[in-house]
């Protein structure tokens, strides 16, 4: 017992919640990736010391409440319009860091035009794209990213390509746009991946600092509640089904892929 107690001292601290997160329990379901991504994003903000220089935009989706957790200036956005809202901010505050945090329904369905044009204009913005293959907030409807055969409340017999089309690979769709400087796809289903995600976010903000343009950090995430799985099953599904279709890694870098 003794030595256990006395190692809990500041000099031995190796991991703690970043100070850039507000003290409030999240509303997210147990095991939901949103919480992990929030934490990693705020770790980077803390380490870069840019808490006062960054402005975030969260559209409606489960993460619409991000402003309750991320301790930085935040703007909620209408469904799909995050990148228009962020463009408005970016254009009037060229010297700040600006990011959006969007779900797949938001970024890839209703927000398609805003996404593509912000990227094509090379808006100097970082977009964190939470791909959980579902509309979480509204109770599990099909998203553009829902896998073929995957069940959702609006594809109860599995996504049927004949009538519902193919799962959209946004990263791939955007990669040839010249305004885009960085596209990477990461995940949070294993510690190693979480650490890689952190590096990716840091890189994206670094590129933004250099004014290189639009960057997309896609996170292949989960939705235990609407996938009707336990968090562990959900992360297994990420590993077995999502990642094979949405392979991880850098898709475009300023250095050239």
């Amino acid at each position, binding site marked *: 017992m003794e030595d256990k107690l006395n190692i809990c001292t500041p000099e031995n601290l190796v991991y703690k919640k970043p100070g850039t997160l507000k003290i409030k329990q999240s509303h997210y379901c147990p095991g939901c990736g949103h919480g992990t991504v929030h934490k990693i994003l705020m770790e980077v903000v803390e380490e870069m010391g840019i808490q006062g220089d960054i402005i975030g935009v969260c559209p409606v989706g*489960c993460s619409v409440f991000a402003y309750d957790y991320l301790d930085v200036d935040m703007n909620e956005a209408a469904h799909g319009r995050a990148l228009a809202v962020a463009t408005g901010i970016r254009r009037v505050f060229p010297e700040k860091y600006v990011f959006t945090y969007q779900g797949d329904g938001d970024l890839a369905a209703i927000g398609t035009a805003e996404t593509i044009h912000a990227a094509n204009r090379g808006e100097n913005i970082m977009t964190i794209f939470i791909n959980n293959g579902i509309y979480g*907030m*509204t*109770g599990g409807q099909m998203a553009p990213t829902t896998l073929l055969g995957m069940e959702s409340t609006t594809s109860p017999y599995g996504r049927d390509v004949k009538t519902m089309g193919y799962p959209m690979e946004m990263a791939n769709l955007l990669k040839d746009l010249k305004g885009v400087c960085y596209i990477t796809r990461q995940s949070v289903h294993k510690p190693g991946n979480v650490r890689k995600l952190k590096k990716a976010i840091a890189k994206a903000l670094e590129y933004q600092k250099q004014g290189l343009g639009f960057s997309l950090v896609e996170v292949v995430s989960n939705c235990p*509640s609407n996938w009707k799985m336990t968090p562990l099953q959900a992360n297994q599904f990420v590993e077995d089904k999502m990642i094979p279709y949405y392979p991880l890694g850098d898709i475009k870098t300023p250095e050239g892929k």
Partner: protein
Amino acid sequence: MTQESIFAGFGGQGVLTAALIVAYAGMEEGKEVCWMPSYGPEMRGGTANAVCIVSDKKISSPIIASYDSVIALNQPSIDKFESKVKPGGHLFYDVANCISKPTRTDISIHAIPASEEVIKLNFIKGLNILMLGAFIKATNTVAIESIEKALKKVLPERYHDKIPLNMEAFYAGMKHV
């Protein structure tokens, strides 16, 4: 006769289902019924409730400010709804889920050892049905047979083998009124 009741508890405790069973049972008896759930965005661990009205005549307003019966499965629900029981009405609560007891004297308060009983029955999920049993015993809102019929409608096919178990819980609830 009109019975305006509300079932309240944590999401997952099956309060919406319990209220729905009463509504179906009422319909079985040719009564007018209305079931109104609380609804919210996809969030776990919140509180949920459902109003159930059963009446012999056309139901005008499904929105009511006070209830004939309140069935509360957790403390927040007791706190929120005790004051909303009509004078002479009923308040049912689960002893195990109650920290501070209701105090009103102008209503009949039923402390049901529901959690205890369902553990005995080794049927944790039956908490809602057990409370339902107590409610029906005290108010005779609908007949027992109607409840049994309603269960068939409300429970998915694959759970129909569980109906006897549910009825057991139901009877156990009745015992305590």
